[in-house]
């Protein structure tokens, strides 16, 4: 299953800015003896939003977690195949996983602000990466919160607990926390599934505004969300042995108006069965 997307296809982006940021080739992922992903190959273009959709258990979250090696945390997880970030293989013993995760940040399903102030939440990453100067930290915090479209709402309560914010604000705080370490890629694992519709639309707007400068990959079980927000979409599903495979990968508009694969058509039209 080699569905490679010609990055030039992404009409909404200036072609010269778009390069292949992440490349996954013939990925097989195992948890113990269970095969979670089979032969997945896809190229993620930079400065755009790529959505991964598919039914529950199709391995889309597993796929996402491969890009910053969060699967390493799961005992018994084993990866075959090659994943490259800017042409550098990331499943290589010489790769510093901590450094990789600095470049490939992640936002989770449930908003998970740390139990500390709004300011400390955003400053947490930069502090750990060695920035001590208070003025510099203040600048980073303001810039990140502005980027995350949260500054105006929290600028007067930076000292308050991050947990006191609303769900949508908490998730934007988590995005600001990731932005503060200046990543190149942001992985989002169902970032809106715990939010109400209005908060969801705000996050989607935020994602669109970030897409100009960051490579964003979002996993969502909400097909409509993938359609609204992404430039490129990947559809994954389970084979009979429950291993996840990539069925179709292409420009979002095409995938949702005229999918090439019958299985994609069946899934997005609700005839999946």
């Amino acid at each position, binding site marked *: 299953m080699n569905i490679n997307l010609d990055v030039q296809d992404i009409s909404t982006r200036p072609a010269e800015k778009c390069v292949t940021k992440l490349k996954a080739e013939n990925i097989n992922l195992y948890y113990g003896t269970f095969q979670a992903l089979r032969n997945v190959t896809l190229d993620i273009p930079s400065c755009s939003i790529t959505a991964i959709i598919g039914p529950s258990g199709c391995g889309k979250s597993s796929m996402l977690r491969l890009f910053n090696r969060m699967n390493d945390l799961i005992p018994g997880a084993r990866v075959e195949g090659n994943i490259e970030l800017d042409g550098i293989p990331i499943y290589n013993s010489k790769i510093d996983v901590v450094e990789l995760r600095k470049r490939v940040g992640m936002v989770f399903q449930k908003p998970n602000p740390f139990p500390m102030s709004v300011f400390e939440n955003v400053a947490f990453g930069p502090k750990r990466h060695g920035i001590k100067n208070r003025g510099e930290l203040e600048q980073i915090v303001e810039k990140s919160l502005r980027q995350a479209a949260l500054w105006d709402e929290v600028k007067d309560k930076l000292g308050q607990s991050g947990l006191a914010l609303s769900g949508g604000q908490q998730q934007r705080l988590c995005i600001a926390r990731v932005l503060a370490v200046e990543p190149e890629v942001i992985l989002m694992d169902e970032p809106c599934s715990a939010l109400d519709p209005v908060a969801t639309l705000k996050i989607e*707007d935020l994602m669109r505004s970030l897409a100009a400068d960051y490579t964003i990959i979002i996993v969502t079980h909400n097909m409509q969300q993938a*359609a609204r927000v992404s430039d490129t979409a990947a559809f994954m599903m389970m084979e009979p042995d429950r291993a996840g495979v990539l069925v179709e990968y292409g420009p979002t508009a095409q995938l949702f108006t005229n999918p090439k694969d019958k299985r994609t058509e069946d899934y997005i039209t609700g005839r999946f069965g």
Partner: protein
Amino acid sequence: METRTAFHKKLREIQDDILALGSMVSKATSRSIEALKKRDLELAQHVVADDKKVNQKRYEIEEKCVELIATQQPMASDLRIIVAVLSIITDMERIGDHAEGIAKIAIMIGDEPPLKPLIDIPRMAEQTIDMLRRSLDAFINHDAEAARKISAEDDTIDQLYDQVFRELLTFMAEDPKTITRATRLIWVAHNLERSADRVTNICERVVFVVTGKMEEIGASKY
């Protein structure tokens, strides 16, 4: 705070496209009449050739609408705008086809001596174009009142068409040799009358966008 800014931006783009398409078909109509008046065959050829661009633009807008429906799940007024656009572009494409028809008649007439100076036909064209322009303004401004008014003006077009028809009929009755030329001019007037009917369709869509009701306004006599 406005959400879905990316979607609303695309929706505005489509509305800009509608205005662009409107100006394309207005121009085609006025040029076809000018070609007829001035016996400018080259201009007429241009109008015929340009109709392809009109059709192309129409498909382009249609595709954008389908994409927005598929990816953005438009609701309420957003949905009505997109549905209206899909209908309006068909009407405008037809207006373009009528202009092309007039240009083809101008080519057919070629350098035959004129039957009479053209007065009412250019007036019909001018008014149709004016109605089209204002109907698109009404669409952009969501102005149902203006749309109803424009639609009512179709009666004047019908009257002008009646006038042109009776006049040319007199010519034909007096001198059967003029039948060919007079019939062609009747076709021209008929094309313009049809174009104006399309404008009333556009006005109906404007009312639909604003009120959400599909109503027939100012049914044409023809």
